[in-house]
């Protein structure tokens, strides 16, 4: 691959991702409205799609206020970390054969490393705000994300065992005959649950829980700094959906009447829709319930899944 081709792939991936993240503002509101039996934004432009522009303009013109009691540099750094770490994770996702930014042999581990760095945005944002509610949100966020990172890492190890590689292109290629969702159903469910907790989306949006903590870790943020958290969350959803598709639903593989990249996007959008449906339909658990559910149910389950997968893989080999 020449250098120019590589630069075009990087720019293309960045362009598509940022547009999807912005477009999800409209998609989420319309879908939520549909499931709650109302109309949603339908005034600006065809089907209300210009709500994206209106919302972005509004964010840019809001006063960008840094509280005098905040720790200034850490306060500014926090929203950048979330967007940076999520964008870095997209580096390893193969969108179609040949369309991948970096073909790393430690791809899956790189994704886990970047998602573990994403915790800093919540922790630092909440701490730097110097506000009781923000600090509570940050404490909750830190313990929730550290706990669910463990299950996320363990749940994909079954896939690694079966495909014998950390490289995502090899993992997709190993699903030529049968998708890993068939052979690793428990791994898929736990990965998806952990993914919701990692992106702190509803029903697991306990770090921000607006009915108890106002807005949690980003209570003091306004203007485009809040916008960064907002966009970071949407990109997080896209990332978890794309990773689910890559690891459990055969990535770009699909019947030949559509190009591979289109298959990838269709599957990814299905999971983004699932994220929004979960938000529309499930209530938020209590904080201790969430942590207990993680350590007492998901952890034993994922360990048993690993043991069984390993045993079957050894049995098939001999």
């Amino acid at each position, binding site marked *: 691959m020449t250098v120019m081709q590589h630069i075009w792939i990087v720019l293309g991936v960045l362009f598509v991702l940022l547009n999807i993240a912005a477009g999800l503002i409209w998609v989420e509101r319309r879908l939520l409205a549909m499931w709650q039996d109302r109309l949603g934004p339908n005034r600006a432009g065809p089907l209300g799609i210009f709500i994206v522009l209106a919302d972005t303009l509004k964010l840019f013109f809001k006063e960008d206020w840094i509280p005098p009691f905040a*720790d200034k540099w*850490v306060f500014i750094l926090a929203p950048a970390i979330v967007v940076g770490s999520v964008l870095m994770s997209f580096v390893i996702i193969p969108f179609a054969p040949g369309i991948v930014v970096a073909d*790393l*042999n*430690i791809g899956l*581990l*790189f994704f*886990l*490393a970047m998602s*573990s*760095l994403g*915790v*800093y945005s919540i*922790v*630092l944002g*909440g*701490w730097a705000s110097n506000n009781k509610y923000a*600090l509570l949100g*940050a*404490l909750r966020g*830190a*313990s929730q994300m*550290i706990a669910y*990172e463990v299950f996320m*890492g363990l749940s994909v190890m079954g896939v690694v065992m079966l495909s014998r590689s*950390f490289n995502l292109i090899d993992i997709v290629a190993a699903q030529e005959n049968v998708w890993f969702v068939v052979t690793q159903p428990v791994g898929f469910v736990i990965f998806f649950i952990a993914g919701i907790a990692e992106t702190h989306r509803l029903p697991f949006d306990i770090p921000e829980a607006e009915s108890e903590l106002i807005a949690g870790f980003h209570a003091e943020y306004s203007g485009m700094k809040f916008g960064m958290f907002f966009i970071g969350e949407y990109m997080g959803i896209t990332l978890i959906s794309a990773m689910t598709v890559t690891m459990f639903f055969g990535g770009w593989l699909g019947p030949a009447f559509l190009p591979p990249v289109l298959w990838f996007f269709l599957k990814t959008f299905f999971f983004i829709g699932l994220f929004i449906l979960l938000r529309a339909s499930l209530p938020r658990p209590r904080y201790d319930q969430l942590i207990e559910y993680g350590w007492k149910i998901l952890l034993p389950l994922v360990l048993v899944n690993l043991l069984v997968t390993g045993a079957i893989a050894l049995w098939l080999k001999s």
Partner: protein
Amino acid sequence: MSLLFYISSIVAILATIMVITRHQPIHALLYLVVSFMAISMIFLSLGAPFSAVLEVIVYAGAIIVLFIFVVMMLNLDKETALQEKKWLQPKVWIGPSILALVLLIEMILLLLEPPSEKMLVTVVTPRQVALSLYGEYIIAVELGGFLLMTGIVGAAHIGKHTKRNLHRFLQNNH
């Protein structure tokens, strides 16, 4: 590759100096994260991607987050910064500086010797790491597991507390 090595080494040294000179504990921890990431880059440039990623996942991603968590919980803010300022007076630096100087002289002497062989960069794949961990070094891995298990049991024992009932009406009632 050697340019990458030198850049990340300089970043690591500068970040580590910042760690020990900051008064605010959270700022020091943030520089420690930068230092860990620079070290991870050094591993990567030496052909060990697996250790590089583990460095980020384990140290930067989990351990330092726990440190920051504890600092946040204890609310070490103004007072600690003042205390640190008091501790970091010029005369404190004398002892460590002498020790560091001895190490520096040793390192310079070692570097001045003609190199016996060139530094070879061989990429170690995750599979090789796993094979040596679970083959050659299995005892060390298991002993490490024992140690962690003791830690967990100890933490569970310390964290356990009997429920105090403030009133008989509140019994059996969460």
